[in-house]
C-alpha cells in the first residue's frame, strides 16, 4: 500500500487528525479562536455566518458542514453565538451524521465568553487524549480526494508547474482516486479543451453552462474582466489575457476524462476527475475543495504565496526558478531543470507524486502546515440584507 490514513466512523479516511473548533459566525470567531489557541487545536476562521439568504445561505451551510465532515477532522466543537442564521445545533447535528464526535456551545447560553472558553477547552483537552488512540492503517488510493489549484500564476505556471501537477493528478485518477479541479473563472477561453474530455453530453453541457454563467454575470455588471483577470502580478509574469491564463491553468487537472460537475463545497459522487463550480480566489477555492472533502491540495504558484488551510496540507509547487529562491521557505517543490533540459515534466510529476504520498502519510508536513498558515474563507453570492 502507498497510503496510510486514519479510519473514520463512516468509512472515510483522513490523512490528518485535526480537532476542529468551528465558529458558526464572525461574532463567535474570537471566542473560538481563544479556546483553540489555549488547547492547541485547529480553527476555521469563519468571518461570515450572519445575514445569509437564498443561494448564499446554502453555500455557507454546505461549506461549514463539509469542513466539519472532512475526513482530516477527527472531532468538531461548534461554537455559536446563539442568534445567527447558521444555527449551531443544526450544524452540529448535520456534522455528527458522519459519526465523529461533535459538541456545541453557544456563547449566549453558556455563560458568556469566559465560561464558554472554559467549557470549550475542557472538551478539547479530553478529545486530545482520545484521538491519540486513532492509528493510521494502510488504505487504497480510492480513499483520496486531491484538490488542484493555482494562484499567483505566471507563464511558467502554465508551461511547467501545472503540467507537473497534471502528471500527479492523472496518476491519482489511474489508481482509482479522485481529483478536484476548480476555478471556473479560469476556464474562460479554455472550456473547449474541457468539454472535449467530458465523460458524457450532460457533463459537457454543464461545463459550457457554468462558464457562460460567469461570463454573463460580468456582462450584466458591465465590468471588464481585464480589471482583475489577469491580475497585475500575472501580467508582470507575462500572462496577457484570461484566455492565456485559463489555457495554462487547466493543465493542473491532468488529461483524464471529466466524470462529474459539483457545486462549491459539495461532496463528489464519482471517482476520477471532477470539476467544482466556484470562483478562483485562492483561499475561497481551497476552502471549497476541503468542504468537498479534499484531504490535500497541490497548489502551483509562479509569483509565490504562503496560504494554507486549517485542515489540509496545501503543497506549494513552483516552476519559476526565481520564486524558488526568493520564497524558498514557502515552497514545497521547486521544479528545476526543465528550462535547461536536465529534467522532464514527467519525471518531475513522478517526484511530486512521491512527495505528496510522504506528506499524506504524515512523514512530513508541508511548508504552510509547518508555518501555521490556516486561512479560511468561502464564496458569497447575494447582497447582504
Amino acid at each position, binding site marked *: 500500500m502507498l497510503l496510510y490514513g486514519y479510519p473514520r466512523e463512516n468509512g472515510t479516511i483522513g490523512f490528518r487528525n485535526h480537532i476542529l473548533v468551528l465558529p458558526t459566525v464572525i461574532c463567535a470567531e474570537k471566542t473560538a479562536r481563544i479556546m483553540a489557541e489555549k488547547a492547541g487545536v485547529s480553527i476555521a476562521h469563519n468571518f461570515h455566518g450572519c445575514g445569509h439568504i437564498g443561494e448564499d445561505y446554502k453555500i455557507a451551510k454546505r461549506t461549514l458542514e463539509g469542513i466539519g465532515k472532512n475526513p482530516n477532522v477527527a472531532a468538531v466543537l461548534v461554537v455559536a453565538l446563539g442568534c445567527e442564521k447558521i444555527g449551531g445545533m443544526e450544524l452540529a447535528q448535520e456534522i455528527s451524521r458522519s459519526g465523529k464526535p461533535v459538541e456545541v456551545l453557544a456563547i449566549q447560553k453558556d455563560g458568556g465568553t469566559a465560561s464558554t472558553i472554559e467549557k470549550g477547552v475542557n472538551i478539547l483537552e479530553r478529545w486530545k487524549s482520545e484521538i491519540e488512540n486513532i492509528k493510521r492503517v494502510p488504505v487504497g488510493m480510492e480513499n483520496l480526494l486531491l484538490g488542484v489549484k493555482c494562484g499567483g500564476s505566471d507563464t511558467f505556471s502554465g508551461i511547467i508547474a501545472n503540467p507537473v501537477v497534471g502528471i500527479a493528478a492523472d496518476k491519482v485518477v489511474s489508481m482509482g482516486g479522485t481529483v478536484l479541479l476548480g476555478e471556473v473563472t479560469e476556464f474562460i*477561453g479554455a472550456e*473547449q*479543451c474541457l468539454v472535449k474530455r467530458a465523460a458524457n453530453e450532460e457533463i459537457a453541457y454543464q461545463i459550457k453552462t457554468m462558464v457562460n454563467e460567469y461570463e454573463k454575470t460580468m*456582462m450584466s455588471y458591465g465590468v*471588464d*474582466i481585464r480589471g482583475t483577470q489577469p491580475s497585475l502580478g500575472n501580467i508582470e509574469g507575462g500572462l*496577457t489575457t*484570461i484566455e492565456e491564463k485559463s489555457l495554462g491553468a487547466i493543465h493542473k487537472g491532468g488529461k483524464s476524462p471529466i466524470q462529474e460537475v459539483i457545486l462549491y463545497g459539495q461532496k463528489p459522487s464519482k471517482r476520477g476527475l471532477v470539476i467544482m463550480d466556484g470562483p478562483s480566489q485562492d483561499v475561497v477555492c481551497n476552502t471549497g475543495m476541503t468542504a468537498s472533502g479534499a484531504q490535500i491540495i497541490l497548489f502551483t504558484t509562479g509569483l509565490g504565496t504562503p496560504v494554507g488551510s486549517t485542515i489540509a496540507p496545501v503543497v506549494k509547487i513552483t516552476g519559476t526558478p526565481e520564486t524558488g529562491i526568493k520564497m524558498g521557505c514557502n515552497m514545497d517543490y521547486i521544479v528545476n531543470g526543465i528550462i535547461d533540459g536536465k529534467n522532464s515534466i514527467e519525471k518531475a510529476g513522478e517526484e511530486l507524486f512521491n512527495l505528496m504520498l510522504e506528506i499524506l502519510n504524515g512523514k512530513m508536513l508541508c511548508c504552510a502546515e509547518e508555518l501555521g498558515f490556516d486561512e479560511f474563507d468561502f464564496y458569497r453570492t447575494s447582497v447582504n440584507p
Partner: protein
Amino acid sequence: MGRFIMIDGGDNVATALIGEKEGESVTIYFEEKRFEVMLKDTIAPGHKIAVRHILCGQQVIKYGYPIGTATEDILPGQHVHIHNVESTRGRGDKA
C-alpha cells in the same frame, strides 16, 4: 528546451524561458518547423514574442487556441503583451 518554447504547431507566439536582449537572433523550433527571428524588443522570462507576422485584428494563438486579438500589426520578434493584444472574453465593458 531552447531559449523560447512554442507549445503548439499552430501558435504564432513563443515564450521566453530566459531573458533575451533586443537585437539578438534566435531560432525557435517546433518539431520539424524552424523560425529564425531577430528580437525587436528586450524580452523578460515568461514573456512572449511573435514568431509569425500577426495583423491587427487577427487572433493571437498559444497552446493551439486563441488567447486574444492583436490591436496592431505585430512583426516577428516583437514583444506580444497587453500593449498589442486584447482579451475577447468577459468583456462586460463592451456589452
